[in-house]
């Protein structure tokens, strides 16, 4: 007898409560975002399409150090170092294969010059797979991206034409080791 009452409780009462609860969902706000008509808000730190930024002077920030290519877990970054006459390093080519990229952001973390950055853009579908491979001219933007004041060659001690050792911001003049008398 007790078993029958439990059965009634389990089969009728519990199901009625479920039915009522689900029915009331009809009047709830729907979770669906009608995407193409209604754009979702993308957070500034969203890891989406990768760009290469320029420093405040408008020069390329990338110094072709290859750290991003090393950090990349799927090996989607390829680049080749070249040098300008003034001693600045720059990538001769810089290629990202977005069909491999997993948007992990490791390249951005590895970059010593804030050159490579991830943006909130995620609409990157293409009809031809080859179009997913982006070259340097596709990746480079005109602005500074997320870091507005950073300029690697002004801060780092690297010597280029027009800026000798010790002339960078907050940098002391180089020490002449031979002049150090005991």
């Amino acid at each position, binding site marked *: 007898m007790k078993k029958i009452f439990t059965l009634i409780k389990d089969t009728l009462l519990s199901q009625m409560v479920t*039915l009522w609860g689900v029915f009331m969902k009809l009047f709830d706000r729907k979770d669906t975002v009608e995407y193409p008509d209604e754009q979702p808000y993308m957070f500034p730190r969203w890891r989406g399409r990768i760009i290469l930024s320029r420093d405040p002077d408008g020069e390329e920030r990338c110094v072709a150090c290859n750290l991003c290519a090393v950090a990349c877990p799927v090996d989607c970054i390829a680049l080749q170092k070249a040098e300008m006459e003034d001693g600045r390093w720059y990538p001769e080519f810089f290629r990202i294969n977005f069909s491999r990229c997993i948007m992990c952001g490791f390249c951005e973390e590895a970059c010593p010059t804030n050159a490579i950055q991830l943006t909130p853009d995620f609409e990157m579908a293409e009809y031809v797979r080859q179009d997913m491979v982006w070259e340097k001219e596709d990746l480079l933007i005109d602005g500074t991206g997320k870091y507005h004041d950073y300029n690697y060659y002004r801060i780092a001690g690297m010597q280029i034409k027009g800026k000798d050792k010790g002339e960078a911001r907050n940098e002391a003049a180089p020490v002449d080791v031979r002049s150090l008398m005991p």
Partner: protein
Amino acid sequence: MNLDIGSGLTIALILGVVIMVSALLITVERRLLGFWQERLGPNRVGWGGSLQVVADMIKIFTKEDWVPPFADRFSFVMAPAIIMTVILLSFAVVPFAPNIGVIDSNIGILFILAMASLGAYSVMLGGLSSDNKYALLGSLRAAAQMVSYEVFMGISLLGVVALSGSFNLRDIVAAQEGLWFVIPQFIGFVIFLIAGVAESHRLPFDIPEAEQEICAGYHTEYSGMKFGMFFVGEYLGLVLVSSLITVLFFGGWHGPDFLPPVLCFALKSIVFIAFFILLRAAIPRPRYDQLMTYGWLFLLPLSLINLLVTGAIILL
């Protein structure tokens, strides 16, 4: 041509409307399920997704109609035809309104029960002839489920028959002029509702198809319009069970005077169709031994007691 029981126009209208409604239910169900799951459902094709059914139909008609080489061709092709035929035949005795119907049969309920039993052949043949382990499991389950629910489904209706004194569905509706049978026969109504869900293989009793466990059960191997017939057959069964509940327990075409009888009937049926979709959205599927236990040890005795009490009250 006049609108009367058994006239050609009425028959054509009933056939057309019933199939149209079943096809439309494909969209309506997806949309309602969406709302009940806090989604929107298909809303792209046409106004608010109303033309989704056209898109679905175009898709299903243009698909390859493939018969697996290992299948038993004759019964494989027969199975979907059986379910459509059987359910459409059942609609012949449904009284939609005083002057709308195909036949005025005095064995209406028996005819519908017989057709429901024949419908089980479709599921079993379809599964067996597919020569696929999932399809076979599905048809095994369908057979087990059929023997479990058909017994108390018939008995639950006997209370209504006893009260109205007739197997004729039109007489049953006429007998509900004053009081709908849902009040004296509430237990019968609940049992028939449960049996109806099982009969139309709908969730929570869609054990023969059970996507999550056995692919699609008995129609795993079906594609194209043959699958479409199983699909529409399921919705036809849904419409049939809803209209039967309306006829047997909720007074058929009776209703307020300002509504035409057929509209009364349609509105009541729509409520039950929506309720069946709600059941699908809300209730999880039991194991099939649970359904058997529930049917044999609880619903069958309950329906017998219901019949006994009804009989005693009529005699007193």
